């Protein structure tokens, strides 16, 4: 377990910023303590410092996981965000998409969402913007995150 290097940090933040923008700072400085990112076996974990202290006692080969796993670095050092990070990204997401109940199930089981399944969408969502998908009850859904058409395009289609 080790802290992230500069390079890794940069890569990771870039990825996260796609979804939450500049709110990244909020992830680190939280009211209930300082959190930090640690790298272990190519996975990035988001832990509070209290937990970090205890986890330091466990040898690397025996440690499996700590706190929340945000994602992992691939062999070519690209950062892949995991679904387990959703809970932290959702509150700070800049662009959100709400889908209708009918399309919710389809989305959960891996299918794309058509425009007809779209309930709401934030304004000014540009194309290929990373979004967080919610159900109509404001529950972040686990699913893919990239939008194909922009908001403006969508509105045009609707009207």
């Amino acid at each position: 377990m080790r802290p992230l290097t500069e390079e890794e940090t940069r890569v990771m933040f870039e990825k996260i910023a796609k979804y939450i923008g500049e709110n990244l700072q909020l992830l680190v400085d939280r009211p209930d303590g300082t959190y930090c990112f640690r790298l272990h076996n190519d996975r990035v974990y988001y832990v509070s410092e209290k937990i970090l202290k205890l986890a330091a006692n466990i040898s690397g080969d025996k440690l499996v996981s700590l706190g929340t796993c945000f994602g992992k670095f691939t062999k070519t050092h690209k950062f892949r965000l995991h679904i387990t990070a959703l809970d932290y990204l959702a509150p700070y997401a800049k662009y959100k998409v709400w889908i209708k109940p009918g399309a919710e199930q389809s989305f959960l089981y891996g299918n794309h969402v058509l425009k007809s399944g779209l309930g709401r969408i934030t304004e000014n969502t540009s194309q290929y913007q990373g979004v967080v998908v919610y159900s109509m009850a404001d529950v972040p859904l686990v699913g893919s995150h990239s939008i194909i058409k922009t908001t403006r395009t969508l509105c045009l289609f609707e009207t």
Partner: protein
Amino acid sequence: MGRKLDPTKEKRGPGRKARKQKGAETELAKFLPAGGDENSKRLSSRARKRAAKRRSGSAEAPEMKKSPGAKPLPGKLPKGAVQTPGKKEALSLFNVARGKKRPAPTHSSEEEEEEDSEGDGVVNQGDLWGSEDSDADMIDDYGADSNSEDEDEDDGEELLPIERAARKQKAQEAVAGGQWSEEETDEEEEEEQASAGSGPREDEESEGGLQINVEEEEPFVLPPAGEMEQDAQAPDLQRVHKRIQDIVGVLRDFGTQREEGRSRSEYLQRLRKDLATYYSYGDFLLGKLMDLFPLSELVEFLEANEVPRPITLRTNTLKTRRRDLAQALINRGVNLDPLGKWSKTGLVVYDSSVPIGATPEYLAGHYMLQGASSMLPVMALAPQEHERILDMCCAPGGKTSYIAQLMKNTGVILANDANAERLKSVVGNLHRLGVTNAIISHHDGRQFPKVVGGFDRVLLDAPCSGTGIISKDPAVKTNKDEKDILRCAHLQKELLLSAIDSVNATSKTGGYLVYCTCSIMVEENEWVVDYALKKRNVRLVPTGLDFGQEGFTRFRERRFHPTLRSTRRFYPHTHNMDGFFIAKFKKFSNSIPQSQTGNSATSTPANPDLPNLNGQVTPKSESGSIPAKKTGQAKQRLQKQLHPKKSSSQKQNGISKGMDAELSAVSSVTKAQVSSKLQNSSQPAVTAAVARELKEAGKLKQQSPELQSSRKAAFRKQRAPRKAMDTDLPAALSLSKTQATPKPEDRDQLVGNTTGVEKVKQQVAEQPFKKAAFQKQNGTPKGPKTPTVSSCSSSRPPPAKRRKSQSRGGRQPPLTSVDG
């Protein structure tokens, strides 16, 4: 021709041959003088009855009538009177022949009982017999008279006329539905051939329960071959079931319903076999269950294990509320209810139109599928916020996540499991449920607290034999035997001691440990808990669960501590949840009690102690005498040249932490280095090392005399290879003094060794000397000490020398010199 004229061969059945043969047999029977004796075993019950009747008169006539079915001598009681017109003629002759061969009175008693059973009217082989008899008689009612003759005597004693009549009537009714079967014929033959002993048993059963199933009774007396054969031929489960009920009925009121001459153990044995057959259990497990439960409960328990428990789930209060979740699930089409008053987060699912493990709420982590009994240990543990909790065997993570939600994601949870594949499920579940304060590790539980200790609370859901979750895994019925249970118990003891050592007794809010298993065996539950009570400074406290059965304070020949009443047992048949056992400990002192028998070689089971030796490192803050016993035993096993002297000296001096650390360091090091050679040679080194450490601790002075004396004693007792010392010396040097517990344990172990004791003692004696010397002089270990050592060693015989030479060269010279 020859075979047909075999007079002893009875022909039964409706076939042509049966009818034909009868004539020949009958003819022959006239010539054979002792036909009765020879064929006595072949006599059908009817025949026997007839004979008895003839002898005794027709007192029992009514009775006989009632039980038309002929009963094979061995005791098979055909059910119900069977009068098949078709067979009548065929059997008549045969029966006549039989009748001539009246059996001895003993049979009559059997028959009588058989008759009773027949009267019950259960369709059975008896039908065949009944028909035969009736056919034979041809004249009278369905063989009742003849039967009654036979069974007169017994029946008369036990039944009132009205009862007999009732039985007869039942038998007749049964006959109406009876069918003849080949199997029955075969069985009858077998039965006939069986000794008479089997008869009484069945009779008694039938009498007691007013039920048929006569056949079952014989197994006892039947030779095993006959029994197995019968069973192998597709045992009729219905019959077996009936028999089970009969036996239980008889045993419930054994005094009055027993059969004479049959002991309770025979009944029990029969019941055991039947239960094993009916419910597909292995014999060992069934025996254990019979010890645990009274018979009525036993059947209920077995029945409950055939049926799965209801599906329950636990709301994840980190993400939702139970009310909201219930609403959401009901909208999806799930039929559910709150689990009970005792749970605020549990829901029980009656049925569901959607897969309950794949709903969006599940994927979002709003609930977890968890057995009701698995929620109980966490409720008993009652974790508070901002605590440090250890979950030693956490997979698949249900209890861990429950702990986290009770703590509201504050504090820290260390979730550990020894199984790497199952850890993946823990990771997945904890992430899904939004647990952020967990660290997941992959240690053997016995390595705690060496890895990290000082937890406020610990939950140990120990791996067990799984006898409480048979409904989930029916393979447990057959694949568990004595060895498995004992192995599990051993592992559980080790884990429990490690867990106890990981708890910080001085914690402000905690100091509790919950031990739970999903097993109902006493060896894995009460015995383990009792063991821990003896070995550590813990006491049992109420679990906080107000329902559930109390644990046993005594079981068969074992006696447990009375506080075991505060533990709780749960059964599938009484609480409708998986079998479970929960015990809650409070640790009141961080010190580890040193066993008094540190010097004794033989004491202590040692198994549980091993973990202590191996890895427990009590924090320095914890002072403690090391359990001498434990060390002793562990050492023995390891065959390390541990230092019995150390332990003894420790005990005498009141071991300080430092000392302990040193010693344990030494011992652990020595252990590490032990090889076969080392064992031989390490003794002296060990002793030297011990001595050195002791000195360093500052207590050497006090101890050295003791050591010396002990050493001398050791020397006197035995010669230990000096070489060990050599090996130990370097080890000792390199040891850090931070290890506490293992050393004393090692010492104790040494003490404990019978065979090794001698060696050990020698080693110990030598080691301290050597070590001290070594430390001081950095390479001239033997200097000052050698004289003492040599003095000690002089008492030792030569072999040590030899071994020494084998050990490392460096120190050898001094050693050899020491050895003298």
